[in-house]
């Protein structure tokens, strides 16, 4: 029973929690929400209609980026030297426990906001959306990103589901952006149907988990689960939890486009505009990985407390199960993504399979982190940091790749790999830029992709030596290595077409030169891919701080 109930105390507690604790850490999301309203208001007022909606959106997102950055800078323990001083996650619970605010939230939000700024610039240059659709398009993008920010901080079952829905439903509409085109509407329909189905399955799984554990709050769920596990999962709860967990995994895997829930990804990417593909492949994936970390850690690693050690030990079996599931999916995802990318003739489809493969690498990192969590917290933190670093570099690589596809589409009117033939004769700059991006996606030195892949593989290596999941991690390592080799061929094939094949006879238009607005955009996106390969300590310091969430 409650102690004596006092509405006044309760209310003032809520007001305090909301205004003093929560809202200051919620400013990036708030600025997104405000920008959405502003975008729609601008369309209503005749004077404001002259204003380009991209500018409004850019202003709002820049605001959000500023807040996200100041939040991130405000985290204790940001260590630029990378010397390994223990970072502190600075964990807070916002809005009465619905959201968790810690270094991972701050980092992912920073990535998302930074991505949005670049993305809006990119869409402005590439011309989709045009002026008339601008307000709709940016409302949808910002609304979806709002959901992704919540995905990165969800700490409650409702928020897990709601964030996924908030991120997905506007994306369905985005996939149908080119609404007069058959392929686009088909892509949207497939995405919506599969996405909604996956969300429904996830919800059912969440209901089972919540029902067994008697709470919806993720850290409390971990506590309850530890209690259950300590008593040996009485009364067949183990089976129910496993089924529920697998159903939740299905929903998360859909967002990650992990095998066997990947089939929507190539079709949606091929049917939707390349701009939307960039958004889905970078932002959506970043948020999905963050949510995976949240849920997995929320369930299987109890928060620090007096009985932390006991609970951590009790949850060993759970972590074993989770590691197994994620590692298995990672292996399948990576392999299938890379193998299927071979037969592709369309650049967007190829990038879609590349996205799937990269989701696999990211999941390997997550698996390693979970495997290490019970044995060596420092190594687990390093694994999470590696995943976070990967996300940071992936942002630039994939955005650059999609930007090149979109801008080439504008000038060549085609997204076929074959139509890129012989570009080196007219536009060597573009080919070099493409080459850098693709080589980085393969993960070859000295580019950003190499560093991130190296870090993830190093974590898996560490998991091989330190954790109890030795054979599994070995498999991961081997499969990851083999896949990298496999991926070499299809990425390089694109380069080969660009460099060595004769240009198609019917090509009339020229690709854009590197000295132009489009070229400047590509350059701006490619430069970080190169520099992060050499000067990576800054981003890694940020990623290390993000990894502190796992402490």
């Amino acid at each position: 029973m409650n102690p004596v109930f006092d509405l006044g105390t309760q209310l003032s507690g809520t007001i305090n929690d909301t205004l003093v604790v929560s809202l200051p850490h919620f400013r990036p999301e708030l600025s997104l929400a405000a920008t959405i309203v502003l975008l729609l208001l601008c369309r209503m007022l005749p004077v404001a209609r002259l204003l380009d909606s991209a500018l409004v959106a850019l202003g709002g997102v820049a605001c959000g980026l500023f807040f996200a950055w100041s939040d991130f800078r405000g985290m204790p323990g940001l260590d630029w030297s990378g010397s390994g001083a223990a970072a502190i996650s600075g964990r807070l619970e916002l809005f009465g426990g619905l959201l968790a605010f810690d270094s991972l939230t701050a980092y992912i939000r920073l990535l998302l906001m930074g991505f949005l700024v670049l993305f809006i610039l990119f869409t402005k240059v590439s011309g989709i959306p045009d002026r008339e659709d601008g307000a709709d398009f940016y409302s949808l993008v910002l609304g979806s990103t709002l959901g992704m920010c919540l995905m990165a901080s969800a700490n409650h079952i409702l928020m897990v589901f709601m964030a996924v829905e908030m991120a997905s439903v506007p994306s369905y509409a985005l996939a149908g952006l080119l609404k007069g085109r058959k392929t686009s509407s088909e892509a949207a329909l497939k995405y919506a149907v599969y996405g909604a189905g996956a969300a429904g399955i996830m919800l059912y799984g969440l209901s089972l988990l919540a029902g067994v554990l008697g709470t919806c709050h993720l850290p409390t769920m971990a506590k309850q689960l530890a209690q259950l596990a300590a008593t040996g999962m009485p009364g067949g709860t183990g089976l129910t939890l496993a089924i529920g967990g697998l159903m939740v995994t299905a929903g998360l895997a859909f967002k990650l486009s992990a095998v066997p829930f990947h089939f929507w990804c190539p079709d949606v990417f091929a049917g939707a505009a390349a701009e939307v593909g960039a958004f889905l492949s970078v932002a959506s994936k970043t948020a999905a990985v963050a949510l995976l970390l949240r849920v997995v850690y929320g369930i299987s690693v109890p928060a620090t407390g007096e009985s932390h050690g006991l609970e951590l030990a009790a949850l060993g079996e759970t972590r074993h199960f989770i590691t197994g599931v994620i590692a298995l999916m990672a292996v399948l995802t990576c392999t299938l993504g890379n193998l299927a990318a071979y037969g592709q003739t369309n650049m967007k489809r190829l990038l879609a399979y590349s996205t799937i493969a990269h989701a696999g690498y990211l999941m390997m990192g997550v698996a390693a982190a979970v495997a290490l969590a019970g044995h060596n917290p420092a190594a687990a933190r390093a694994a999470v940091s590696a995943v976070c670093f990967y996300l940071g570099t992936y942002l630039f690589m994939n955005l650059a790749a999609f930007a090149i596809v979109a801008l080439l589409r504008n000038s060549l009117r085609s997204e076929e790999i074959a139509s890129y033939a012989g570009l080196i004769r007219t536009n060597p700059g573009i080919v070099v830029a493409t080459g850098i991006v693709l080589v980085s996606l393969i993960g070859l030195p000295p580019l950003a992709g190499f560093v991130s892949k190296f870090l993830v593989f190093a974590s898996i290596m560490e998991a091989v030596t330190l954790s109890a999941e030795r054979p599994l991690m070995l498999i991961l390592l081997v499969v990851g290595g083999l896949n990298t080799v496999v991926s070499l061929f299809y990425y390089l094939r694109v380069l080969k077409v660009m460099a060595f094949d004769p240009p198609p006879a019917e090509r009339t238009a020229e690709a854009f030169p590197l000295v132009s607005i489009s070229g400047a955009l590509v350059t701006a996106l490619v430069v970080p891919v190169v520099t992060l390969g050499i000067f990576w300590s800054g981003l890694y310091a940020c990623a290390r701080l993000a990894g502190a969430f796992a402490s």
Partner: protein
Amino acid sequence: MTGTIRMDSIFTSVLLHLPAPTAPVVAAVDWHSVLFLLFAGLACGFAIAVVAAENVVRMALYLVFSLAATAGLFFLAGADFLGAMQLMIYVGGTLVLLVFGVMLTAQAPLVSIKPSASDRALAGIAGAALLAVLLAAAVSVDAWRKPGVGEIPSPTATPLGMALVGVRVDDPPAGAPLTGRSGYMLPFEIVSVHLLVVLVGAAYLARAKRRKTPRAIDVLASSDPPSQGAVLAAAVPAVRTTSGAGGKSALLGGGH
């Protein structure tokens, strides 16, 4: 039982004008269970009917019945507000929308698109397997198999409303962990942003595009054939799709 059943009072006090005798109420039939069976049967039966039906309009009708019966289950479980919301938003809003969509597309050949027999068999087997798994998940937890204690639930509208502004006034249920009880102000507020965005998206997709002057990028013909929505297509940036897909869609496009 006093002061609550009021249709009786019409009869007792208005028509008969007799005091109600105070005999002890002995009813062995658990009406809650009977009503549960009724609603559960309706909900499940119509859910299966949705699957079995081939006419999409009938499917929609069965779905209405199924979800309305679900609202009945909510009432029985003590979730009065949720039951009303289910009726109001789900049945009265979402499903009307869905039926609206059915009407818009219900041309004779599209009303019943039959799946092939092999699909049907496969779906039946997969469905049975899934049901078996879910039932196993439900049944294997001991605590859920116990009969309900029949604790009388308090009305939920006010506690729900208070929870939505962030204050929890309901008692924590017996046996529940004490931590992790949160107010729900954030989702309550943020869902409004979501609904706004979604409305914008739906309106964008549904409205015909009225462009005054086509851009240069649109004038260049694309290989995508003019479709049913050619009016809309005229305004869409031209992106040449794969020759294979384009050819295929040209075939399909020629078909109708």
